[in-house]
């Protein structure tokens, strides 16, 4: 991903989350891996939905918790949306054939990425989302 700012931002509302998602989508390049880390309800799926919107994907982005990964190919780049909540560790992610996605032709967005951190590429972009002080507020840390 080009010119990604390493930063800490405070998202006041879902509109800010959308802005971040669209920005990530605009800068995304094939092979990018975005690792989302944050508690239940912090908006990981919401952010993914806005990344998809930014990529021009028209499909409904429903939760992949049950199937682990869902593929969307109607946008500028293929989007591979993972939710590894049900997995135990990185080994299990590789067991389902994830390498082809991680080093593939699209971008991978991985929810609960801390569970599988050991097998993610070194240049993965980590996005930590935490609850802010006020309702609807989120503190977002972007590192790589």
């Amino acid at each position, binding site marked *: 991903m080009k010119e990604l700012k390493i930063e800490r931002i405070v998202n006041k509302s879902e509109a800010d989350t959308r802005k971040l998602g669209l920005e990530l989508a605009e800068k995304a390049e094939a092979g990018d891996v975005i690792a989302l880390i944050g508690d239940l309800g912090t908006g990981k799926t919401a952010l993914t939905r806005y990344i998809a919107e930014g990529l021009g994907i028209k499909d409904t982005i429903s939760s992949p918790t049950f199937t682990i990964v869902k593929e969307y190919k109607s946008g500028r780049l293929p989007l591979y949306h993972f939710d590894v909540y049900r997995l135990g560790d990185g080994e299990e992610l590789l067991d389902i*054939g994830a390498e082809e996605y991680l080093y593939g032709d699209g971008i991978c967005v991985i929810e609960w990425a801390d569970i599988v951190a050991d097998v993610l590429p070194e240049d993965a972009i980590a996005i930590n989302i935490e609850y802010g002080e006020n309702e609807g507020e989120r503190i977002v840390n972007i590192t790589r």
Partner: protein
Amino acid sequence: MKNGKFLTLGIESSCDETAVAVVANGRELLSNVISSQIDIHTEFGGVVPEIASRRHLENVNWVIDKALVDAECTIDDIDLIGVTYGPGLVGALLIGVAAAKAIAFAKDIPLVGVNHMHGHVAANYLEHPDLEPPFMGLVVSGGHTNIIFVEEYNSCTKLGGTRDDAAGEAFDKVARVIGLGYPGGPKVDKAAKEGDRNAIEFKRVYLEPGSYDFSFSGLKTQALNYLNSERQAGRDINVNDVAASFQEAVVEVIVDKAIAAALEHNQKRIVMAGGVASNSRLRELITERAAEHNIEVLRPSPILCTDNGAMIAAAAYYAYQNGERSGYDLDAVPGLEF
């Protein structure tokens, strides 16, 4: 053919379960083997894990063998092979598809690829021998929440589905939030029996008027916000009340939409499927509301509600009767639409 009956071997490996069944004449269950339900540790000297395609690979041969043995037949008695080719996990699907193609080729048996969702609906043909289309289908599980109008055996239309979390997933997540643990469905169901379903007002999300789609993601946030505000106010949280109130919010929307769909399409039967069809409050409320409109509610037994090979065999049988055949180029389609 055995004893004059047409035998279908159904293979399902789209997600966690490696499952194989033998079904006679599309309706009669002869065997139904689901890998995770067998104590392989004692029977085969290993451990049954889930999810991984590698593990489907380890399972698939003995699950097929056991399904044939349980059905008291051999592969030479099988007239048709049905296999799930999507939607699901690509690695998992491929194992079932490859196994099905290999047997079909080696034994020259016709092959039909089945959509997993069609399979869930077909589970009811096994449970209710007299059931025939048309009817309104309601598939609610950990991965799906769909209202499906089944016009004929091989023709159905998806009227609505989830836009975010599936119903079963919402149960799992809220169960986690209130500390009930996994699997959330049965635990919330149990706790809810001791709780007051009107204690907390969770929003019923109906989306646009006339829509048969669902959205359950917001409920999880509502539950979290409720718990936070109660904790901040220093009040005790009654887990049973939260469970009952949350469950009611999910169940009410599902029931209202399913009945509205049945009425709009003049259907007198609602046929349920999927793991959440076993939820006691959903069963109670849908039966009660449906009766007001003279609508009958059917559902399969719990074993046929979860992922299984029998439903794939039943769906394959009717597709085959309709002239459908798959070639040896059948491929797994992870994102297969309904």
